[in-house]
């Protein structure tokens, strides 16, 4: 143990819950690191952060964090998170989900959370394990169409970029989404003969382009490539703020009736 612990330890239940459950070569820990660096950069208070997840490898993440943490049912992270945020809009609510959790069993909730535009930072760690069993789709285009005010994609290879994307998502007023492409050498990688963790990381490096590069490429050249960066960024009224305004008007109307 070094005399001076890395600052990340401040955000972890370091003495309680480690070692973690993830396989060697898994990308989820890198996403954890990005979340910590983003929270630290924003100076958020641990008492104000609620980290919510569903079921799956990614959803094991909250238990390691020294925040208010909530490990819920398969697919339902955003529904629980919506309850937390609406009951106490002062809280900073983050939902972490895998691709199956967010897009298969929980697909309905993510669409409607985006429609509602409630301020939750939604992080989808996509390791293709769900995409393995049926043709995948473009998560970011779906959520852009559903009206999410901030949609971005990163990979666990491009960590500095990922730190920034997650930080931007956390700062955004409304439902923000970051899809993080991440290797699973144990399941998807092995089943599809993609090699080990190192080969899969190289695949993320070589198989992805950033949004600016992508703009210069033809659809044929883009085929099969992961496009990284901010893919949608717009302004729309946030749900809890709209609701607070509705409450104010309802109170005024009720007091008029009393008079």
């Amino acid at each position, binding site marked *: 143990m070094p005399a001076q612990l890395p600052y990340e330890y401040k955000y972890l239940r370091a003495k309680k819950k480690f070692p973690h459950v993830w396989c060697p070569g898994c990308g989820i820990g890198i996403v954890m690191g990005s979340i910590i660096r983003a929270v630290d950069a924003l100076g958020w208070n641990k008492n104000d952060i*609620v980290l919510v997840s569903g079921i799956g490898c990614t959803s094991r993440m909250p238990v390691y964090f020294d925040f208010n943490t909530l490990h819920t049912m398969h697919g339902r992270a955003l529904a629980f998170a*919506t*309850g937390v*945020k609406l*009951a106490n809009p002062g809280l900073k609510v983050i939902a972490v989900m895998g691709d199956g959790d967010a897009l298969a069993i929980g697909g309905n909730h993510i669409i*409607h959370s985006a429609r509602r535009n409630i301020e939750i930072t939604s992080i989808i760690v996509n390791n293709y394990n769900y995409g393995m069993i049926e043709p995948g789709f473009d998560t970011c285009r779906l959520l852009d169409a559903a009206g999410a005010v901030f949609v971005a994609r990163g990979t666990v290879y491009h960590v500095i970029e990922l730190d920034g994307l997650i930080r931007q998502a956390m700062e955004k007023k409304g439902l923000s989404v970051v899809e993080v492409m991440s290797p699973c050498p144990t399941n998807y990688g092995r089943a599809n003969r993609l090699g080990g963790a190192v080969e899969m990381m190289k695949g993320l490096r070589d198989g992805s382009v950033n949004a600016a590069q992508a703009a210069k490429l033809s659809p044929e050249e883009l085929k099969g490539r992961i496009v990284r960066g901010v893919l949608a960024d717009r302004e729309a009224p946030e749900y809890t703020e709209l609701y607070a305004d509705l409450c104010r008007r309802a109170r005024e109307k009720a007091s008029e009736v009393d008079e």
Partner: protein
Amino acid sequence: MRVPWGETRLVQGNEAIALGALASGVNFFAGYPITPSTEVAEMLARSLPQGDGAFIQMEDEIASVSAVMGASLAGARAMTATSGPGFSLMQEGIGFGCMAEIPFVLVDVMRAGPSTGLPTQVAQGDVMQARWGTHGDHPAIVLCPASVRECFDLTVRAFNLSETFRTPVILLSDEVVGHMRERVTFPKCEEVAVIERPVPETPTEWYEHYHPTPSNVSPMATYGSGYRFHVTGLTHDRQGFPTRRRDEVDEKLARLKAKITRRLDELVEIRTHDVEKSSVVIFAYGSVYRSALAAQVQLAKKNKRVGVFRPVTLWPFPDMETKELLDDKDVVIVPELNQGQLIHEIERLTSDSVRVIPVQRVDGYELTPEEIVSAAMEVM
């Protein structure tokens, strides 16, 4: 909409549930509309914003029960309301609430099933679903109103029990009770006790979200209070962290059971009418209880004495009271709007010498007093 404290009004059953919730300090409702429960949502949608409470219509019932639990963890007094198909969708969430010990109230206004069934006519088909609908061994508290005033009173009680016992409480109403209008004299504000959940006083670093106590219920911190804790549906230790250790698993599950079974006196509630003096007793609950009372009067006119035994709390079932009051009877008539659900509890708790007779109706209409009378006349 305000609670008409101390006033007399013509009120609908579902409306009385909304008023009971407001009387109880509800400040969060998430739901998805379904007849015959929708009036509860409609009324709270209008009144909650006036008091800074939150109302949200979610995308389905699974999301609704999930949002309710998220809100409760963030400190809200939270509820939802639904009917059969929605109740089925909420079952996994109820189990999460039992396991993670999250207080909330769930209203199920029963309609005829299975499946879409007879929308939206009366039934009592969800009695066993209310007890055993979610998977695994779990506690269940289920209250069953039979009048509009009871819709109000039992909603208040449901909130108090859920906060006291830190567990979901189900108010199992039915379409007749829900849509019926009655003259109700509401209690005065000071007559209604509102119990809040116990909050921790320990320093944050010592806090255990599931600390064992003599009552088997631990004080409960909320998100944002400075107590940072973990909540999971995985079997967990006292701090809430997942465990597979036998001693910790056993302790958790035993405590979940004991928090109900050791405090039955606070939970079990029955009403009896002439039971001790009668050798024939009608066992009825919900709207059918009203037919049973009318049947008792009609039979008295024919010089036939019957008693009426009614569980107000359906779960935990009044085992002791049933044994004590019904085991020496000649006949127990069990009218139900299903093909026999609570009748099996009576059979379980009474000796072979007691004849247990079903009177059942499943076509979406109320059992009439006459149907119960003619069943009684056959055995008397």
